[in-house]
């Protein structure tokens, strides 16, 4: 898989997924969603969690945004893109370019 920098996320075929060392969790004790990695914890809201759940290296940002629009009233594709781009910059996500792949996760 080819990895990319956040600025390349304008690519229409960019298909994000969590980095292999990152895991999404919901903490009942804290009543919040979080992305867990060896040294970093990103606390995210329910919409963020919904985005992450759709990031499977199969869907493009546009497809993720479209699916979210079925569930939520207001989902701007630019918001999804910047959420993903931010996590890519922080090594929390990776991006697969090109055709959807069956990935080994």
């Amino acid at each position: 898989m080819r990895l990319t920098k956040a600025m390349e996320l304008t690519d229409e075929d960019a298909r994000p997924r969590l980095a292999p060392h990152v895991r999404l969790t919901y903490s009942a004790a804290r009543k919040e969603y979080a992305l867990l990695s060896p040294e970093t914890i990103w606390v995210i809201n329910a919409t963020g969690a919904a985005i992450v759940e759709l990031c499977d290296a199969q869907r493009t940002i546009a497809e993720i945004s479209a699916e979210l629009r079925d569930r939520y009233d207001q989902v701007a594709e630019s918001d999804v893109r910047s959420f993903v781009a931010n996590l890519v910059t922080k090594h929390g996500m990776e991006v697969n370019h090109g055709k959807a792949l069956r990935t080994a996760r």
Partner: protein
Amino acid sequence: MEKPYGLLAELTYACPLQCAYCSNPLELDAYRDELSTEDWQRVFAEAAELGVLQLHLSGGEPLQRHDIVELVQCATDLGLYTNLITSGLGLSTRRAEQLLAAGLDHIQLSIQADEAALNDQIAGTTSFERKQVAAQLVKQLGWPLTLNVVLHRQNIDRIGGILDMAVAMDADRVELANTQYAGWAGHNRDELLPTRDQLERAEAVVRAARERLGDTMEIIYVIPDYYSKYPKPCMDGWASRQFTVVPNGEALPCPAAHELGRALDLPPANVREHSLEWIWESAPLFQQYRGDAWMPDPCRSCDRKEIDFGGCRCQAFALTGDAARTDPVCHLSPDHGIVEDAVAAANDPLRPQESSLTPRSKLIRTKKRTTASTRGMSATTLVQFSETILKGRQ
């Protein structure tokens, strides 16, 4: 009061290595009476209930605990993110497969240098080849590989070779953190502190590697705080987001707080006697430097007090004897001369070349199901997750 996010469980101080940069306390014998499997399981359950999301299993060498697989399984069942911080010694194929099946999320493998002679000299034991094998095993089983290399005067000039080795191992992440001078590393500070020239060269190598490698490998590089203008935001503030439980059950707000707690003569906060909830919320040791009421000037009136929280209480204690002083690393600290003197000595062109590092002493596990002889030093110096643990603020 915020709930803690991270727990560092130092399961044992036994370790097959004897690195002079170890952050474990000098008085290893005081921690022989280790918590049982059941004790740790209860601690993990209480931690999860308290809001902890991330569990670091360290030591010493955590693989010296024969119940390590059981402990990982327990943490997995509780939904905790598990991170094993290991020298790689004791990571047999069978053990690794068991840990994978038990749900271990991540392994941080320590290595001391990029070639056997220096690695084994620093580790005090023949271990380089076994670490290479362990790295391969981690990748083969599909874990992401984080390589930890504690940097210091003796190995920092090898940083280019170390990065090449990390690439050859197909590491996903490499942590190149200069030593934090606690425990054995504090004792050996003058032999570990690099020169300014060494640091400048190392930083140039890291910059070039980041450019060359792009996002294929994440490189985390941490300079020694002795060379920075301001202190590190140690633990993101005392008893703020994370804490440590050491082998005998004592809970500490900072992984280096062993001696500080005793010196203050505060009642011990031991998980054998108290719940984690009580310890986090009420133990005098945890209350002591929480927030900013304890702060003296220059911290009290400083606009950075919310950024670095006055630095490390344990470093202030180690250098001045008073944990409530500003971290002497800060250039505004009235005690900054202590740090300047150490830096000057490190850069003295006339200082003798001969190094006199004191290797971490050996600790043999005597309790329960003990294996052959095992001993100690560890990868723990890198457990400065205060550097990077973040909540929301990316």
